[in-house]
């Protein structure tokens, strides 16, 4: 029995932490906030095999599993890395493998592994988000409509979108009738957009109407990766607060020697560690027990969002005034955690999805606006 990361997975983690740590010092992060992904960083990640992790070896990847993807996502969050990891390296490869034809996999997976193709992904139609639902309709081999909150959109070469909740389509960025409106979100490390389509040619992933199960899996994968990203960011914030509480003296003693701060830090780590175990387990069953995917991804997202918010807020509070200046840069982690909380369904929404998955209640029926 072994619960946790293997030696290889730990090596992958170390490698990524080193790579991201070297490239993403605070100054760089502050400078690049709000800009598209840095091409150098992306090249380095591609070289480390990040984009090929979930792609089989015969398509140019390394054939790893969801736990490795989790390790990568956690490292991304830990360094608040400005990179379109989720869309390109997780959701797109999964989509082609879960719903694509052999010919499509042959044609589309290798360019992802090599870093040539980058995917923005839009799942809002099925993610249960209030206010704006994307709706894409397909007619005469052309697509019309809008998709809101397309993730990792800023440098995408392709967009992977849901249509009618049971079909996945891929659209090239330069295709006819594509309009992209970038959104200004609180987390400036990744790019979200509203993608509009008008008479736009598309390619269906697999069969039209045949992707409902794949979409469920994509949503679960996305939620799980966001949980891991939040976890990594929260862990970083916890340990920054711990370190600061030992360095910062007030009243002639480190503030971490006051029980007020000490017990808060204890509560933070008491929340964090079981959450790590849950996320690992959720990644494990994603591959090994597909029937458990949705339940565990939803719970991982919910728990990580709740404790992430608590830890992010508490870390800033422990840092006192400096915590909410741009100087220390803590806000980058805080904002990433806040944004992850909302993406692909806030805590109440994913918990509702977990209840639906267990047959406790009916799904909320979504109506497009």
């Amino acid at each position, binding site marked *: 029995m072994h619960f946790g990361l293997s030696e290889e997975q730990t090596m992958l983690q170390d490698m990524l932490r080193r790579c991201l740590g070297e490239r993403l010092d605070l100054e760089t992060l502050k400078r690049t906030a709000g800009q598209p992904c840095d091409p150098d960083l992306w090249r380095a990640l591609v070289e480390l095999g990040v984009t090929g992790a979930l792609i089989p070896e015969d398509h140019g990847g390394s054939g790893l599993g969801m736990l490795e993807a989790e390790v990568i996502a956690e490292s991304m969050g830990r360094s608040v890395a400005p990179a379109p990891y989720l869309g390109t390296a997780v959701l797109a490869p999964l989509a082609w493998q879960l719903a694509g034809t052999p010919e499509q996999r042959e044609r589309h997976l290798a360019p992802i592994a090599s870093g040539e193709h980058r995917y923005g992904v839009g799942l*809002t139609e099925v*993610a*249960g*988000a*209030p*206010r*704006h639902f994307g709706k894409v309709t397909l007619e005469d081999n052309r697509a019309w409509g809008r998709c*809101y*909150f397309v993730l990792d959109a800023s440098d995408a070469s392709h967009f992977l979108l849901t249509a009618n909740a049971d079909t996945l389509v891929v659209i090239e960025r330069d295709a006819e009738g594509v309009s992209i*409106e970038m*959104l*200004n*979100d*609180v*987390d400036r490390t990744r790019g*979200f957009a*509203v993608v509009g389509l008008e008479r736009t040619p598309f390619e269906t992933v697999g069969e039209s109407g045949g992707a409902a199960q794949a979409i469920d899996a994509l949503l679960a994968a996305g939620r799980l990766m966001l949980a891991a990203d939040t976890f990594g960011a929260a862990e970083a914030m916890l340990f920054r607060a711990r370190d600061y509480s030992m360095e910062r*003296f*007030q*009243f*002639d*003693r*480190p*503030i971490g*020697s*006051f029980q*007020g*701060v000490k017990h808060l830090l204890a509560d933070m780590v008491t929340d964090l560690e079981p959450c790590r175990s849950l996320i690992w387990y959720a990644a494990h069953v994603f591959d090994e027990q597909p029937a458990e995917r949705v339940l565990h991804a939803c719970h991982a997202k919910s728990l990580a969002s709740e404790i992430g*918010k608590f830890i992010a*807020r508490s870390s*800033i*509070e422990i840092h*006192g*005034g*400096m*915590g*909410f*200046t*741009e*100087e220390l840069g*803590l*806000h980058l982690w*805080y*904002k990433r955690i*806040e*944004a992850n*909380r*909302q*993406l*692909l*369904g*806030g805590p*109440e*929404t994913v918990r509702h999805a977990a209840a639906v998955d267990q047959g406790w209640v009916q*799904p*909320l*029926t*979504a*109506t497009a*606006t």
Partner: protein
Amino acid sequence: MDLSYGPEYDEFRAEVREFCRNHRPAKHRSRGIPGVTERPNPDVLAWQAKLIEHGYAARTIPKEHGGYGAKPDIIESRIIQEEFLAAGLPLGLSNQGISMLVPTLLEVGTAEQCAAYIRPTIYGEMIWCQGYSEPGAGSDLASLRTRAELDGDDWVINGQKIWTSSAHVADMCFILVRTEPEAPKHHGISYLLMPMDRPGIDIRPLVTMTGDATFNEVFLNDVRIPAKNIVGARGQGWHVANVTLKYERGMLGSADQGQSGIKGLVELLQEETVGSGRAMDLDHYRDRLLRLQGRTLANKYHGMRLLSQSINGEQTGTEGLITKLSATELAYDIYSLGVDVLGETGTLYNGSPYQAERDWQKSLLGCFTGIIGGGSANIQRNIIAERGLGLPREPQVRFDNGRWEMMPSASNKGGN
């Protein structure tokens, strides 16, 4: 229980209402807060002068210093606020000079200082900033290190201040400096008045997580000011500062903020669609809203109770110490619900396309100023427990080189 102000105030209220009907300031207003993030423009100054003339600003400041010279009367002040708010008229200027420096000068300043500073300050012509916090002196303010030495007829000031909110627009700074380095830490501090146009003052904006720069760092390098610019005696600065700190606590954490937050949430939950219904129809969102409404109402009536205590000259006990902690937590929870209800749209920010009318995310970020500013939550809890509940004070110990030592303080008393 009598929630009216009594018939004796009817006339006064009528008078204020009459004023509000007949007067209106020039429309030219900007987005900043005059006297805090920008200098008041001529329209603001004219409105302030008119308010003082009628006694609706600087009401209790003596006539000799340019004020209206009325007797302090909390109910009158409250009526002015209520009527101006109801009429949608801006109240008089509110900045640190008016709310903190002027009361301090009136209490401990010299006649000369009062004569020189009060009038221009209340008329908005002289803007002040507060030079208290330092990078190493936050919760433990008395450990401040910026020092001033007398050199002939001048104080020479060296050091660094932080969180100086209106430094970039200010004419003057009331500043705490260490003048007796040998004395115990609370006894070596003096309270000086520093013109901001002196050489050696370097102001750098401090950007917060909202992206705004309402605060500054102020670097002081051999800044010379006249020796007479001291308020109170040498080494008495801590006591002088406590006169003003008392006023600052009243400014933060107003219970009213919650009311508009709840109103906003009610509208949001009624308008937002989740699935096929309104967010209001989902029990979990609505139940969170109702919990927040309950706390907001409690804070509102608690504010009335405190007002009543002030009016009736009753001593305020524990109940007066808790408002800040209670109000800042409430604001954080209110804005968090707003963001949650919006789902992905809740991440949008600063006028993004598709954003909700209200910037819930930015309001949430803004909460940290309240949570941390004016004393961290843990400092508040200490005050509540020690002053309010009578629990023992913290031991005065020092952690040095990995070992604990008793502070060489003469009075390591734990009682109150």
